């Protein structure tokens, strides 16, 4: 396998290297890539969409259809991880509980699963006493991270960022909670059902905005027609349409990141993880 690998790799590399001979020099201003299609985006994006960040404008408007499928790919990954890993019926294994007042640890082998109570707290089998400093700092930090994520989503028009990055950061905040406390804490605040529903809702918002455009008489994802509903002119309608789409992307990405992490780290049981 190794020699075959080396041969294939060298062959591919040689082919690619051979082709670089014909490339325009790196960073040349007159290369076809920077003279044919892209100048129009730079020149017109501000006029046509009122979005200074050209990447956002191209991402969500000119090539918004690509981005819809990009979100769909993420959604597929979330559903795929769910369907591959999640196990619903689990055999009752060993469980550990702690009496909160006295800090006595109970070990229950198999059998029935005790109900939730305020006096006992369930703890992980691979139990490590969670550290006070890390717990406190992370709990303080999570709201700020979420605030930053919302800023990234909302400010994607003017600065780098947008739905995808903001969604990842939102998801990361919940993942941070799951890592610093334990997975049950995170799932209590953000249940699996909510998560899976949000996953679908986010992409649904994206596709739904596109479909609304059809219903209003323009083409799919042609945000100009939204001006009839939003009471703004056509250019601002594009800008608002981009914003709505970014929100949808953010919701889906957040939910998918959390879902993949939960399923991976708990091997589908969603009770205890990293």
């Amino acid at each position, binding site marked *: 396998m190794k020699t075959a690998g080396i041969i294939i790799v060298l062959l591919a590399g040689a082919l690619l290297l051979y082709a670089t001979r014909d490339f325009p020099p790196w960073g040349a201003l007159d290369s076809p890539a920077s003279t044919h299609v892209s100048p129009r985006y730079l020149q017109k994006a501000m006029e046509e969409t009122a979005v200074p960040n050209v990447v956002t404008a191209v991402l969500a408007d000119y090539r918004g259809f690509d981005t819809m499928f990009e979100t769909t790919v993420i959604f597929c990954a979330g559903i795929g991880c769910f369907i591959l890993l999640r196990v619903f019926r689990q055999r009752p294994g060993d469980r550990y509980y702690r009496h909160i007042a006295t800090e006595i640890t109970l070990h229950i082998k198999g059998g029935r699963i005790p109900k939730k109570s305020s006096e006992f707290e369930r703890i992980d089998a691979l139990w*490590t006493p969670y*550290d006070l*400093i890390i717990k406190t*700092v992370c709990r303080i*930090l999570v709201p700020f991270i979420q605030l930053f994520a919302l800023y990234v989503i909302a400010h994607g028009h003017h600065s780098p960022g947008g739905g995808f990055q903001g969604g990842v950061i939102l998801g990361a905040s919940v993942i941070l909670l799951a890592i610093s406390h334990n997975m049950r804490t995170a799932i209590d605040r953000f249940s699996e059902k909510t998560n899976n529903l949000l996953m679908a809702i986010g992409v649904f918002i994206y596709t739904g905005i596109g479909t609304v455009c059809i219903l209003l008489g323009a083409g799919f994802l042609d945000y100009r027609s939204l001006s009839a509903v939003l009471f703004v002119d056509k250019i601002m309608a594009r800008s608002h349409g981009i914003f709505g789409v970014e929100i949808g992307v953010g919701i889906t990405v957040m939910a998918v990141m959390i879902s993949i992490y939960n399923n991976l780290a708990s091997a589908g049981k969603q009770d205890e993880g990293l």
Partner: protein
Amino acid sequence: MLNVIVIVLLISGLIFYTGAAVGILRLPDFYTRLHAAGKMDTLGSLLMVLGVALFNLHDFLWTQFISSLKIVLILLFLFILSPTATHGIVDAGVRAGLKPWTKEQKK
């Protein structure tokens, strides 16, 4: 004047970074290395970020001030997070049963 302050801040930040790098390479065991990395890195990055924030205020505009404020926020978070992360790693090391280095041991 501002330039001088910025240069001083950046250079002292660099000195602390160098110290951290030397410490990680030269110190004998896990805990001492983390000690170097944790303290020197935090201080070095604080100084550097402060330098950048000040440099940003070169021509004083409202927007520049806002972005400097954001950089100061980063500074704040670094100040909280870097020691916490170091603490977490050391904690994991203690749990994993790493023995601290003593003088009797060979390197």
